[in-house]
């Protein structure tokens, strides 16, 4: 297990290097610079600013010095928020995005698994069709549609919930969390239904029935664990998807999280901000994929104990 983790972390280094290089080149090849603005700024001011941020140096020199900073965990100063570092800005936005992501993940996991397991207990009946049709709808519905729709229904028409913000009015966290989590709940529902059906048809479930175990115990003690391994393995990719989704949801609901910073940074050509956040997100995604894979392995004794050679 430790060797697996170490190996995956080593693999992550070249991946991150590619991410850094590609983003660096993309950002620097985009037309315009961070200090090109609508109103004319004197040429010497821009020059001075560019010198301050080393933008007058050759590209490869900028690249090398940037890599050096990153190794020390320093993403450099923001171009658009003078006097603030990218590290500071990430630290400011992270708790909000993390909270949003956590709620969305909880919704996805709890609702997804319950709906999937529930549907799998009576396949091809109403108990299966209703949640699975809802799941299909959830998967097909993009968050930039679902969000405004929920706002329209629960915020404006029914006036039950606030339409925007985060932590200002009670209940304003509900709609964004649902908007972000819905598609993943739907996906997890389908995934766990399929896997549960697979597991419930296995011989060892029949063995458990032959022991006299009542059906609910069979589901909980014999089917759930095997049925949820793929769901656990999916949590890593789901996390990556949630991060991406949070950009949209934070913009819809005007939540001051990382996602909004990121979108703004792109509009502002805030090079260091874009680079820093991209690298930060990439590292998070790699880390969470590793964690969910490790959890899935740990849940599967065959993999946990290395190769499953039978003893005589």
């Amino acid at each position: 297990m430790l060797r697996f983790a170490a190996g995956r972390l080593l693999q992550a280094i070249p991946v991150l290097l590619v991410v850094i290089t590609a983003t660096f080149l993309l950002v620097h090849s985009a037309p315009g610079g961070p200090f090109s603005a609508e109103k004319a700024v004197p040429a010497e001011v821009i020059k001075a600013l560019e010198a301050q941020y080393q933008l007058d140096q050759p590209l490869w020199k900028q690249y090398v010095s940037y890599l050096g900073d990153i190794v020390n965990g320093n993403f450099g100063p923001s171009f658009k928020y003078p006097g603030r570092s990218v590290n500071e800005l990430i630290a400011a936005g992270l708790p909000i995005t993390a909270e949003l992501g956590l709620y969305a993940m909880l919704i996805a996991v709890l609702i997804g698994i319950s709906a999937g397991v529930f549907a799998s207990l009576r396949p091809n009946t109403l108990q299966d069709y209703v949640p699975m049709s809802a799941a299909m709808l959830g998967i097909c519905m993009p968050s930039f549609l679902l969000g405004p729709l929920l706002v329209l229904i629960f915020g404006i028409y029914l006036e039950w919930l606030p339409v925007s913000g985060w932590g200002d009015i009670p209940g304003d966290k509900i709609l964004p969390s649902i908007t972000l989590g819905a598609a993943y709940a739907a996906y997890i529902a389908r995934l766990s239904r399929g896997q549960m059906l697979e597991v419930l048809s296995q011989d060892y479930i029949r063995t458990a029935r032959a022991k006299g175990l009542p059906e609910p115990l069979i589901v909980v003690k014999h089917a759930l664990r095997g049925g949820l391994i793929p769901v656990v393995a999916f949590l890593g990719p789901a996390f990556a998807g949630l991060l991406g989704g949070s950009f949209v949801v934070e913009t819809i609901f005007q939540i001051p999280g990382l996602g909004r910073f990121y979108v703004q940074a792109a509009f502002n050509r805030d090079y260091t901000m874009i680079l820093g956040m991209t690298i930060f997100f990439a590292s998070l995604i790699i880390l969470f994929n590793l964690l969910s894979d490790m959890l899935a392995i740990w849940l599967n004794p065959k993999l946990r104990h290395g190769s499953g050679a039978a003893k005589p």
Partner: protein
Amino acid sequence: MTEPLLSVQHLGVEFDTDEGVVRAVDELSFTVAAGETLGIVGESGCGKSVTALAIMRLLPQPMGSIAGGSIRFQGEDLAKLPVARMEKIRGARIGMVFQEPMTALNPVKTVGKQLIESLLLHTDLKVEQAIRRAIEMLDHVGIPSPDIRMGEYPHQLSGGMRQRVVIAMALICRPSLLIADEPTTALDVTIQAQILELIKALQQEMGMAVILITHDLGVIAETSDNVAVMYAGRMAESGTVYDIFDDPRHPYTQGLLASIPRLDHASKTRLTTIEGMVPGLLDLPKGCRFENRCSRRQARCATHAPVIETIAEKHKVSCFNPATQPPHDAAINT
């Protein structure tokens, strides 16, 4: 005569399939007395497993169902028992061993957890007592260092060891009936003999009855008191092991016997096999199901189905024209 432990009467089992309703078991009757072994034999697909699953009420849902007949076991009709009552009988009073030891155990639970499960469910034992009993049981079925095996996962055991664990699991609550559905078919020949020996030894020690399902007459000869020969979902012939082996009457039984290699025959003897195909359950013939393969068929065999008749104390045959002479090879098209 006292009531037998298990009495299956006129059992029918149907499957609702896409092609229509299939009657996989029809008019099947047999009894098993306490402590004795009934061998059920017949070609693959003749309904042996379905019969076992019907007794356990574990027919695949929702397509499989018991359609007629009764399954009396210790004074109750299992065919009509509510599910909750049936769960109290499964594992406690009837144990079952399935054919595939490789897949019969849950891969993500330790051997120990799977063993103590039924004890905790059916007895008042505390966890520590259950663990002790489970270790004893593993020892009993011939698993070395049982206390270590308790903490291992199925994939860490060989096929033979797994089948021993499955047997230990089926017997741990000391049931009065064990149903073993081809318990050795998936195993090596040497292991097969060991497992059969084990079942026999445990049976004598615990005094339970056994229904041993197999397509191997050799296994039946070594283990069974009584034998039921099934063909296409029906009983062809049943009787004591002597009735069946020394005085087989049904042409199908005779054909089966003729097709086992015998040590006492000259090695040159050609192995006989029964020619022709088993009729499909979807288009069964109107008459006897064996008619198209039978060398003793008569005109009425094609139009009328024989009913099973008693010809000696326990010996029953379902045939209009049963053989009267034992010679095995004579009755069969070769």
